[in-house]
């Protein structure tokens, strides 16, 4: 036992993430600590601002994101067009905000799709073990053999571009991460006394899974889902930047960035606006993630 603990480089006295989670006995306590963490607070504020603006773009601009005005193309920011106009005379601010809406939709659906599939796979692999575990986890290893955005690109290669396929591609790309995390959580839960007790009175596997395992295993994957948003947003805009995702004239950040490349000398405000839009939102999610880690894993705390 001692040798094993030493080998993993974790001294015995320090509680892991699970223990810290258990220590923050109520969700309210955890939330309270999260709000006291400056990093997490910064992230939360950024995300909330984006959500509100994406939901109600009319707060900042009355222009339609798709209406062209060829008499007024590539204008720098002004009182009427606060972030200027693009190569077709469309309002950049409006396109940025509608792009936020699209990014939230794509990332949200992709994380839900990948999260639920991965959760189910991890649940089955972890609970049943044996051959089920081997087959499912080898399959996950295969998906993990294509690093980063490459797996999403491979899926797009088969399905073709488009919003729906981007969601599927990023969803698939998220499955192995969720499956691994869920599996390791389930392995911890299934040997606990209440599960063994339930099994000993003859409960069926579906009953144990639904009544005992799932309620005790969804927490970590749920927090992890929050952290996956930043990668999902980056991957989606990356695919569109490559011309393998959402194509113009849909106001998608990566696609708009690719289109405005050619005007970098004439109208640098375009590249600046779209790039800052992506960066700030992703920064928000990453700051929230960093804060979450500090709250639940004080070893690396500042």
């Amino acid at each position, binding site marked *: 036992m001692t*040798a*094993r603990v*030493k*080998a993993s*480089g974790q001294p015995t006295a320090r509680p892991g993430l699970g223990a810290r989670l258990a220590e923050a006995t109520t969700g309210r306590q955890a939330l309270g600590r999260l709000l006291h963490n400056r990093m997490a607070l910064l992230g939360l504020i950024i995300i909330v601002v984006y959500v509100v603006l994406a939901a109600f773009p009319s707060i900042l601009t009355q222009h339609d994101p798709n209406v062209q005005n060829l008499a007024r193309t590539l204008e720098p920011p002004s009182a009427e067009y606060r972030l200027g106009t693009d190569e077709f005379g469309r309002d950049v601010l409006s396109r940025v905000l509608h792009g936020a809406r699209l990014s939230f939709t794509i990332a949200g659906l992709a994380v839900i799709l990948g999260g639920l599939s991965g959760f189910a796979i991890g649940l089955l692999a972890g609970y049943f073990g044996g051959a089920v575990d081997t087959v499912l986890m*080898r*399959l996950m*290893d*295969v998906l993990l*053999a*294509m*690093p*980063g*955005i*490459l797996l999403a*690109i*491979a*899926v*797009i*290669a*088969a*399905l*073709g571009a488009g919003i729906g396929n981007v969601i599927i591609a990023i969803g698939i790309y998220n499955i192995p991460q969720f499956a691994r995390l869920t599996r390791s959580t389930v392995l911890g839960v299934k040997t606990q006394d209440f599960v063994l007790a339930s099994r000993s009175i003859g409960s069926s596997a579906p009953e144990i899974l639904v009544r005992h395992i799932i309620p005790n295993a969804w927490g970590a994957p749920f927090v992890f889902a929050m952290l996956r948003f*930043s990668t999902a947003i*980056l991957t989606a*805009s*990356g695919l569109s*930047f*490559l*011309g*393998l995702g959402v194509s113009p004239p849909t106001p998608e950040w*990566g696609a708009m*960035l690719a289109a405005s*490349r050619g005007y*970098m*000398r004439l109208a*640098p405000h375009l*590249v600046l606006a*779209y*790039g800052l839009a*992506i*960066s700030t939102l*992703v*920064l928000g999610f*990453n*700051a929230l993630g*960093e804060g979450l880690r500090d709250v639940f894993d004080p*070893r*690396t705390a*500042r």
Partner: protein
Amino acid sequence: MLRVILSRLLQAIPVLFGVSLIVFLLLRLVPGDPVSTFYGFDVGRVEDLQAMRHQLGLDRPMLVQYVDFLADAIQGDMGTSIKTRRPVATELVRYLTNTAQLAVAGMIFAVVGGILLGLIAAARRNSIWDNLSLAISLAGISLPIFWLGLMLVWIFAVQLSLLPSGGRGDWHNLILPAITLAAPSVAVIARVTRASLMEVINQDFVRTAYSKGLSEAFVLLRHVLPNGLLPVITVTGIQFGYLLAGTVLTETVFAWPGLGRYLVDAIKFRDYPVVQGGVLVIALIFVTINLVVDVLYFLIDPRLHSEAAK
């Protein structure tokens, strides 16, 4: 020892087998035919299409095509590109050389920059340096690398005319793409280095070293860094895979004639053999790197030896 290495090797084989099967199936089961794409809409003669399908072997049963594909791939034959009609393997090697150049340059930036940032942050915990290192790290994982690349081009090529904006040439052409490619990995390596070194810095032998009157730089470089490097090596190995994936975006921004750009073009053209070969080669490299990191980890950490002996 040899057993550990061998078992890792054996684990990698089914993974690669699975990747080849998935890549093969993905591209065959989906509607959209490379032959009609190649001819476009102006040539409508069905016999021509059939003849070309036959020539490419696309009219054979799926299983036969797969076994054939696999047998050829093992011998280093990845088929012929539908677009250029040249052997895929030859083209892949040419593009891979360019990508490797970029990836290695990026990795050097990532490792040096990451360890340096992490070391400074750990040595001056909670100081302005620590916060600066954190800010750079957060920016590194938050800025999309395709945008970072564009901004670097705008500043150093368009505004200052210091460096070329893209293409291949001498080492000047390598600087901006390598920095762009390295940015997310610098961030991750810096964070892991900081966390790992901070555990070491609080240990007794470090205090002993200081009490002997050794200089801080000496203690950090000779005592702290070597003892905190294990997690850094692991994460660096993983980052190399992500760096490879990142070349797809970086090469597009900087018009770098590498594997990633070649792959994206092939996807748009539905050039099946190239897409299959490209994905397979990248997966092979990624799996190999993970293997090497595993073995390296085992060699460096003597504590794992006694584990394996049991």
